[in-house]
């Protein structure tokens, strides 16, 4: 019942409708089978993939054309995503400059035949936090080149609005460093971002467990992206299901209009009519 209700309000990004409010990263799963099962359990319709070098065959490259394992593994990932019927959102993970990110986005467009790009431009190896000026530069170039840009960004509301002013289709502020499982370190800023921009806000990075995903939605996010929280959980499929319920719960709760916080108690049982046994 709950999910029916929530499904009735699809998320719209750049004209695409998504019934699920959960984006799933494909990294970190112990096997493609667990990835497939987790996608199904999550209900996600949009999953991220990266571009990396193919493995070169050991033999000499050239006329001989030796056999390779590329068809197997590469095909496998794309095939799994096809089989699950999900859309692919390529990322630019690992890029430290606007230039690398732009090239990677263009390669992704060729590889996956999609204009959508999750734009990551990293500024620090230890925290994998975004680099604001390079991110703005790359976003500008990619928007100009016709991409639908979803930037992974800090929780800075001013930066988020600048990205939207440039033409980004959504913003993906982080809750905490990628893979840290530290949750949403600054809920206050996430709420400010929600007030600052008119495009969808997708909480990205930092989520470690279901309550944090629900909180993201309650703060006003339109969707939540999870990767390590699911893929590296002891039971990825169960965590995928947990996240699915959590974003539904958070979205419903936000829409329901929660009670105000108060310092003191308010009886849920009326005082009037209390008997006197003295």
């Amino acid at each position, binding site marked *: 019942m709950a999910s029916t209700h929530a499904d009735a309000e699809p998320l719209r990004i750049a004209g695409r409708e998504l019934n699920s409010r959960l984006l799933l990263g494909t990294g970190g799963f112990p096997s493609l089978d667990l990835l497939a099962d987790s996608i199904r359990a999550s209900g996600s319709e949009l999953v991220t993939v990266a*571009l*990396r*070098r193919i493995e070169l065959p050991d033999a000499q490259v050239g006329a001989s054309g030796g056999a390779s394992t590329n068809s197997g593994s*590469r095909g496998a990932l794309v095939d799994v995503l096809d089989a699950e019927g999900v859309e*692919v959102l390529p990322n630019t993970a690992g890029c430290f400059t606007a230039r690398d990110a732009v090239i990677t986005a263009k*390669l*992704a467009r060729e*590889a996956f035949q999609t204009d959508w790009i999750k734009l990551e431009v990293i500024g620090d190896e230890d925290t994998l936090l975004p680099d604001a000026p390079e991110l703005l530069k790359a976003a500008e170039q990619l928007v100009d080149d016709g991409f639908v840009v979803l930037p992974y960004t800090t929780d800075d509301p001013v930066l988020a609005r600048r990205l939207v002013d440039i033409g980004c289709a959504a913003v993906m502020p982080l809750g905490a460093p990628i893979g840290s499982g530290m949750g949403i370190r600054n809920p206050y800023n996430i709420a400010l971002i929600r007030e600052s921009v008119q495009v969808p806000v997708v909480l990205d990075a930092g989520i470690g467990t279901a309550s944090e995903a629900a909180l993201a939605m309650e703060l006003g996010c339109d969707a939540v992206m999870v990767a*390590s929280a699911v893929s590296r959980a002891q039971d990825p499929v169960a965590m995928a299901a947990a996240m699915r319920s959590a974003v539904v719960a958070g979205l419903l709760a936000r829409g329901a209009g929660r009670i105000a916080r108060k310092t003191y108690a308010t009886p849920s049982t009326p005082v009037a009519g209390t008997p006197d046994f003295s």
Partner: protein
Amino acid sequence: MIVLNGEQREHGAGETVAGLVESLGLPAPARGVAVAIDGEVVPRAAWETHAIPAGASVEVLTAMQGG
């Protein structure tokens, strides 16, 4: 010689991107694959005709599980 994904490789004169990709065990349409030469993307439509120049730095990339 070319540099393919960071490694020195021999290089047949006149070899096209399409040829290289196929030689790597990625038969057409090679979905999920993309190629850059010297930092520039080679569109799929040009794979058949784009000859790889000697000394080029070639990146052949493919889909990978990722964040």
